[in-house]
């Protein structure tokens, strides 16, 4: 509104200037006029151009100008123009009419008829909706040229036409309207509704005028016009216009004359019952006003403080509201207001209850009662404003703006209100919307999620808007009404001085003088604080006054709240906010929660926010922000809990992992049972351990142990040597004897253990020799026991006799485990691995299977000839079966394809002893008569199909071989060779019969 006023003011000033210039020019040009404008001289008759009449010096005869003829010609021309103009007007040729009238005016400047005619033509020529400025100018000239003639009849048109120009001619229009209004009703040129127009213009002036008093005067003048208008209507026996009645009601409302306003609205109901919208609005206004009347009546009758019973019911209601027991809260608060109708706080909370129960009309009524009783209660204005904003889908935005504007005036420190107002003004005043959003961005919380929305809104609304920040004076504290009358007067006077006249110094002085008489009045101190607060740079002094006020009465919620907001994130600020929250301030409660959160007191912040969400409602200014903060907190807590859970799982997983490490895994026998095919590799490694480790005279452990025990002369030397043998020579090995590097016997042993584990992994089994295999468990422990004493072993000379004996015991124990016992255990393991006996029976059985296959059904095959006794070999029987059957099948197939009948094979089981290594091999010679070319390279290079590639792979696994060799009496022999078991290896308990596989793993006989 302030911006509008300024626009109008500037516009009005410019128009006045323009009018003045026009009038001045007109005045200059008409200086010679008497009653009539000067007339231009007529042009000279033809042939007499460029010559002036004068004395004939030449003595020739004088030419007498016929002045009358000139005048007549002029009149004729003027009449012609007028005539043509009228005709053009009749024919609606406005431009031509304007030209003709202008021409006429050129001959007779200021001719009223021509001016009026041209004005009409201008008016008709102006498109609808545009300001007929030229027409208005012509008509207003009549006031100069024909003030007692046509002007009197055309004034009404001027007023009407000016109304089409917005507020451009507001002041002029008002002046003319009021002139017309002064005429007698029915007088020529006076419209019947001129008073309404005058009242409307006065009301508009009131809106743009600065200062309450001038505005009030305009309104009162407008009301007077309307009352006179009604009287005229009564005389004329016509109904007053709806607009007039509505305006009268509105003006009386603003003049805080509710009874007159009610009367005006009631007239609408009577005079215009068919105007449904107007009737509805009027009824609404009547309801509101009657509330005010009722409140006024209550105040007059009662006023003052609530009764103790009412107060008790109020407190119970408040407690129930905080527990979200809306039903109980409603009944208690209704009881309170019934008991003490003048109870603004109870009405406010009752409104809250109704609002949360979605009984919006009742909520609005309660809030309005509260406001009526306590006009400057910011909380009620906020609640009502937010209720209008949120629950009426834009239809009550004006109401929302009114109340939130008021709330902001009362609490300029609640910057979040700027955001709500920005949203409201988006729909009606983009410039104001932008201002509010900017205020919010400047003073609001830095991390408020609404900031993004505000920025986006500004960007969307951005346009050149004049920035004007009208001064908004603070309003009187709400408890002024109950003060000592003298104090009340002083405070009000100070308010007027400051707010009305801007004289804050005088206002402050007045209040300070009042303070001498009323030193401990909190209302006075609070007013002082407000007065200095609005002045730049004096917030510190405001704080002083508020603190003095608190010293008088510490239970002032709003003061604590203001101080808390002012002092923000400081210890005292927090203290004030907490106190305000305790006293019931939900705003303070939210701010406390926010401060705690910003200071990483997460759980305290969460608690406070929960209390806020319990106490507050959807119409609290921080409600939406609190919801977002709650969601954000929940998200953060979830992440914390998740991280904590993961950490806990990780922590707990360590002992579980350790336990799992102990219990998982297999022993060596279990490995062989699960994956028998790994035994060739296992057997090899065990042999290496047996030979490599134990050959390195781990048995000397016992020797050295005995020598130390008996304190033999060379015991130290032997011990040192043994240490070097076991753990290597480098000093590093002493630092970590468990490192398992290839240093010394111990290192090699650990390496072999690692190889076993690797073999197991290759077969999908995890070995846990340290814990699950008794054999290796004992050996590893024995090595470790000695490793712990490695230092003593290296330097036994410096040991005491006790330590020397202790070392001796360790060595003797280890020597026992790692000597013959370990050797025997490992031997037993190897010995127990899978054995297959290859003899004639086995060969015959495999041959029978192959020879009876479908592919050989139609072939007449001679019986197999088998020679030799065979041997026991270390091989998985099913693998042996596969190998043999593949070879037999291949030989048979080749014979069928290439040999001459009779088709048949021969098998010889030959025992071969290598004269260098002494190892015995079993050679299975499979003879055939097939001339098909077959070489070792073909077999080993997997060039031969028919399963022979697999055969070669299987053989390799068991250190077997396949070769093609010449054979007397046959074409060739395919010879399979396997290392045969020594007699002792092939113990009867573990012998294998063909066709029956049974792995005989061993549990190492560890002496368990």
């Amino acid at each position, binding site marked *: 509104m302030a911006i509008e006023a300024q626009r109008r003011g500037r516009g009005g000033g410019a128009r006045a200037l323009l009018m003045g210039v026009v009038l001045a020019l007109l005045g200059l040009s008409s200086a010679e006029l008497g009653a009539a404008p000067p007339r231009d001289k007529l042009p000279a008759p033809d042939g007499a151009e460029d010559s002036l009449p004068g004395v004939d010096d030449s003595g020739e005869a004088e030419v007498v100008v016929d002045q009358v003829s000139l005048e007549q010609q002029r009149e004729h021309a003027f009449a012609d123009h007028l005539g043509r103009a009228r005709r053009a007007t009749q024919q609606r040729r406005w431009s031509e009419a304007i030209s003709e009238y202008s021409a006429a005016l050129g001959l007779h400047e200021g001719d009223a008829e021509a001016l009026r005619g041209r004005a009409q033509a201008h008016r008709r020529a102006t498109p609808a909706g545009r300001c007929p400025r030229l027409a208005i100018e012509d008509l207003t000239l009549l006031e100069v040229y024909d003030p007692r003639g046509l002007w009197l009849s055309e004034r009404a048109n001027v007023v009407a036409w000016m109304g089409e120009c917005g507020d451009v001619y507001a002041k002029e229009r008002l002046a003319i309207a009021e002139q017309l209004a002064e005429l007698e009703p029915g007088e020529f040129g006076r419209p019947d509704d001129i008073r309404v127009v005058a009242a409307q213009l006065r009301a508009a002036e009131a809106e743009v005028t600065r200062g309450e008093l001038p505005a009030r005067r305009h309104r009162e003048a407008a009301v007077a016009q309307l009352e006179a208008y009604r009287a005229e209507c009564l005389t004329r026996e016509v109904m007053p216009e709806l607009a007039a009645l509505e305006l009268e009601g509105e003006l009386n409302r603003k003049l805080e004359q509710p009874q007159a306003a009610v009367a005006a609205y009631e007239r609408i109901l009577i005079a215009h019952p068919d105007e449904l919208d107007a009737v509805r609005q009027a009824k609404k206004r009547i309801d509101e006003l009657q509330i005010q009347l009722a409140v006024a009546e209550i105040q007059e009758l009662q006023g003052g403080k609530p009764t103790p019973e009412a107060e008790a019911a109020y407190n119970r209601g408040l407690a129930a509201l905080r527990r979200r027991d809306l039903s109980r809260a409603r009944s208690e608060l209704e009881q309170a207001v019934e008991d003490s109708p003048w109870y603004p706080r109870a009405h406010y909370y009752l409104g809250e209850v109704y609002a949360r129960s979605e009984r919006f009309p009742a909520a609005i009524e309660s809030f309005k009662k509260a406001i009526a009783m306590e006009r400057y209660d910011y909380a009620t204005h906020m609640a009502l404003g937010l209720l209008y904003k949120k629950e009426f889908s834009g239809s009550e935005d004006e109401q929302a703006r009114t109340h939130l504007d008021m709330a902001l005036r009362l609490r300029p420190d609640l910057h979040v209100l700027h955001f709500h107002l920005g949203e409201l003004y988006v729909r009606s005043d983009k410039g104001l919307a932008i201002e509010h959003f900017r205020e919010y961005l400047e003073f609001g919380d830095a991390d408020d999620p609404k900031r993004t929305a505000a920025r986006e809104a500004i960007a969307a609304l951005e346009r050149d808007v004049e920035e004007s920040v009208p001064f908004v004076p603070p309003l009187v504290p709400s408890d002024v009404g109950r003060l000592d009358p003298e104090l009340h007067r002083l405070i009000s006077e100070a308010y007027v001085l400051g707010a009305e006249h801007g004289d804050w110094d005088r206002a402050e002085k007045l209040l300070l003088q009042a303070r001498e008489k009323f030193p401990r009045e909190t209302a006075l101190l609070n007013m002082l604080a407000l007065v200095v607060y609005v002045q730049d740079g004096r917030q510190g002094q405001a704080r002083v006054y508020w603190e003095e006020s608190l010293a008088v009465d510490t239970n002032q919620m709003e003061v604590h709240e203001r101080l808390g907001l002012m002092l923000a994130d400081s210890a005292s600020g927090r203290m004030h906010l907490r106190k305000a929250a305790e006293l019931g301030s939900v705003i303070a409660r939210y701010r406390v929660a926010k401060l705690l959160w910003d200071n990483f007191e997460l759980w305290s912040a969460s608690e406070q926010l929960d209390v806020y969400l319990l106490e507050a409602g959807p119409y609290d200014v921080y409600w939406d922000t609190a919801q977002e903060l709650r969601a954000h907190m929940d998200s953060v807590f979830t992440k914390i809990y998740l991280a904590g859970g993961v950490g806990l799982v990780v922590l707990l997983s360590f002992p579980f992992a350790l336990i799992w490490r102990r219990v998982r895994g297999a022993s060596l026998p279990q490995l062989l049972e699960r994956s028998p095919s790994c035994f060739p590799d296992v057997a090899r490694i065990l042999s290496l351990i047996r*030979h490599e480790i134990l050959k390195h005279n781990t048995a000397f452990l016992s020797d050295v142990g005995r020598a130390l025990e008996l304190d033999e002369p060379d015991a130290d030397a032997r011990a040192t040597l043994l240490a070097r043998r076991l753990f290597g020579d480098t000093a590093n090995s002493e630092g970590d004897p468990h490192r398992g590097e290839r240093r010394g016997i111990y290192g090699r042993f650990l390496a072999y253990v690692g190889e076993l584990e690797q073999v197991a992994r290759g077969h999908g089994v995890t070995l846990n020799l340290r814990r699950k295999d008794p054999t290796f468990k004992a050996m590893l422990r024995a090595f470790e026991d000695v490793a712990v004493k490695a230092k003593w072993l290296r330097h036994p000379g410096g040991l005491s006799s006790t330590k020397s004996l202790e070392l001796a015991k360790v060595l003797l124990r280890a020597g026992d485990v790692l000597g013959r016992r370990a*050797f025997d255990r490992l031997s037993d393991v190897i010995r127990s691995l899978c054995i297959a006996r290859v003899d004639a029976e086995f060969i015959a059985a495999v041959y029978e299977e192959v020879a009876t296959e479908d592919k050989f059904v139609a072939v007449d095959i001679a019986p197999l000839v088998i020679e030799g006794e065979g041997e026991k070999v270390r091989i998985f029987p099913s693998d042996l079966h596969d190998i043999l059957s593949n070879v037999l099948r291949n030989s048979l197939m080749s014979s069928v394809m290439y040999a001459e009948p009779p088709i048949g094979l021969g098998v010889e089981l030959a025992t071969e002893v290598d004269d260098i290594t*002494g190892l015995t091999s079993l050679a299975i010679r499979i003879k055939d008569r097939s001339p098909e070319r077959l070489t070792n390279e073909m077999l080993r290079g997997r060039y031969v199909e028919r399963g022979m590639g697999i055969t070669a792979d299987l053989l390799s696994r068991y*250190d077997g071989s396949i070769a093609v060799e010449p054979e007397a009496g046959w074409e060739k022999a395919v010879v399979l060779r396997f290392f045969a078991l020594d007699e002792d290896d092939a113990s009867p308990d573990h012998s294998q019969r063909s066709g029956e596989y049974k792995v005989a793993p061993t549990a190492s006989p560890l002496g368990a």
Partner: protein
Amino acid sequence: MPPKNTMDSGQDRPIKVLVVEDGDEYITNLTTFVAEGVSYRQAKSGGRACEMLLDELPDLVFLDMRFDRTPVEELLGDMVQLTGRFNGDIGRARRFQQDNQGLFILRALRDAGFRRPVILSYDFGVEEKRFRALSSKDPALHYCPDYADAKVIRQTILAAVAAG
């Protein structure tokens, strides 16, 4: 006929032993634990052992079985034949060669004319058949199990020398 060797001090001369191994474990152990009356020399490969025979003929050769630390080019044995025996798998053949290198060296020593006792440090206790096959062709072959202590080793040396 070699002079009588004993381990008694002051009588005759010490028993000369050539230790053939790929490391130093045996030479260290023997010189420490079985030093009395015995002198030791060491060769780390079969080829070197044969050369040392020409320098000084030992009374006995103490022979390791497995030679996995000797450079492959110094290993004895027919790799072509061994590779064929293992289906063309050179890796397996090499391993076999290393695992049984002692026996290949024994063959080389015998081919070089050394007829005196050889103690193979390998437990043929579970492979008696094998040892019989070897010793039937080489009566001067003895073996000493890996777990033998100093006393057993000493006894084995003396017995081998006495029999040889």
